């Protein structure tokens, strides 16, 4: 099975690296700019001018303000951008690992060999786990480097760990979902659009929940409510409960991927 994992990593190494490096550079840029932003007060002034609904959508809190770089990242990056990037990253990875090889027949390279479908699904799952972990580890590493080397950036280690572990579990859960959907269809575009549609709906629900108190219930329809950066920063987040829920979602969808791929007929 390690041969398959290694081959899949080799085949998908470039997009995985691109996402990990791209997001890390963005975080590094924000962390590096943070001290000068705080000095000029420009950022706070701009945010004050924005309507509260928009700030809520991005999970900014006007009251707490920006005591450290994580306050900024909690809204700017982890508030919404991370959710969009995570969705695109895992949608495209699941398509490359399963939906596309099923659609264009490349999968026969592996399935003509004496390996079971469970072994291939497990290999795809391992690659998704490794890719998600790589993204989060690179992001964490860059923030730690900024903490050590950029003056004026002070990051609370425990909050950073909570952020990243929660983000990682969110990636595992979305990865399970996209992988499961990829096993259901012969057509890559169909799998991509269905999984993408659900994730876009989740993002819309998250944004919609911030528009008014009446729409706050919408966040419970979105998986992204299990990664609430504002609550993580305030320390009011049900951290372990959310991790447990994300792990359960991840487990169930991965199980679904195994069952569905085992049973289906393949025209490859």
């Amino acid at each position, binding site marked *: 099975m390690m*041969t*398959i994992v290694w*081959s899949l990593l080799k*085949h998908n190494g470039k997009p995985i690296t691109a996402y990990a490096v791209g997001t890390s550079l963005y975080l590094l840029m924000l962390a590096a700019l943070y001290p000068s932003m705080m000095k000029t007060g420009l950022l706070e002034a701009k945010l004050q001018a924005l309507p509260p609904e928009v700030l809520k959508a991005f999970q900014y809190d006007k009251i707490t303000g920006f005591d450290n770089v994580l306050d900024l990242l909690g809204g700017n990056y982890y508030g919404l951008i991370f959710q969009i990037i995570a969705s695109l990253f895992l949608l495209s990875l699941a398509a490359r690992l399963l939906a596309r090889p099923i659609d*264009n*027949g*490349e999968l*026969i*390279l*592996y*399935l*003509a*060999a*004496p*390996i*079971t479908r469970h072994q291939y699904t497990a290999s795809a799952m391992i690659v998704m786990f490794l890719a998600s972990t790589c993204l989060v580890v690179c992001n964490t590493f860059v923030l730690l480097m900024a903490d050590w080397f950029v003056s004026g950036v002070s990051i609370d280690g425990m909050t950073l760990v909570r952020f990243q572990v929660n983000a990682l579990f969110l990636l595992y859960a979305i990865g399970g979902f996209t992988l499961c959907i990829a096993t259901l269809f012969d057509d890559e575009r169909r799998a991509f659009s269905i999984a993408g549609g659900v994730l876009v709906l989740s993002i819309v629900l998250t944004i919609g929940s911030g528009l008014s108190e009446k729409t706050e219930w919408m966040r419970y329809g979105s998986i992204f409510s299990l990664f609430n950066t504002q609550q993580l920063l305030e320390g009011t987040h049900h951290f372990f409960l959310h991790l447990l829920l994300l792990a359960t979602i991840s487990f169930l969808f991965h199980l679904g991927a195994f069952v569905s791929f085992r*049973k289906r*007929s*393949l*025209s*490859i």
Partner: protein
Amino acid sequence: MIHLQHVTKEFAPKRGLFDVSFKVEAGMVFGFIGPNGAGKSTAIRQLMGLIQADSGHATIGGYDCWKQSQEVKRIVGYLPGEINLPGDFTGEQILNLMQQLHQSKPERQSELLEQFPFETKTKIRKMSKGMKQKLALVGCFMKDAPVYLLDEPTSGLDPLMQERFLSLVDKERQRGKAILMSSHHFPEMEKSCDRAALIKEGRIIIEADIHELVRSSRKQYTIEFGLEAHAEQFALQIGSQRFQNHVSFFTGNERTLNQIIRLLTEYDVRAIQTSADDLEHVFLHYYSEEEPS
């Protein structure tokens, strides 16, 4: 070795496989002939454990093709009809990966690359159809498996490579391998197969020894006459069509070659030609018989 028993897999009415049965023993090359969409690839996918049958039973080496697909694939070398491989990989990388996945010997790979040479450093997306076909052939046969399932194996190969492929198939047969081969290329099926089955709309319409199939078939002849008037008269006599001083006709149970020869003694005959693709005529004969009028 390969055994299909009353296998049915229905995708849509007249699409899929319907009550298909055949056997391929060790040391036999079995040809699977039929037009596009007749069910040849579906039958091969059934054997590879890619499709689950609605009813019936498919086994290779005694292993159930769906339930024990891992054991089946251990003893099968498979050449798919469409060669789709990851475009970013080079031929060499694909062969190395296949070698690891199938645990095949590198010496066998070198031997096959000598017979079917191509630039192994080229990326798949830059390869021509013929190159990809050679890569797939090397990948399939380097496994040295007791059973081979070959779906349109000569597609895209030049005549020299086709000849080499046929001699490889012959060698493998002599080594006791069971080979199932689907193809549209009738001359190569005649040369390489021991038995053949004709399939149409998912049903096998005839299965027989290949030479028996050819022998029992209607054959087409073209007679060249010295005079157009003779051609005209002969065409009227046998109820056939004339083209200038040529008359073409089929022989069969109702019109034997002996009867025709007796008639021809009264004419000035310049030449008699037979069609080379005899198996193609068998194929067309059975298909036209089955066509609704």
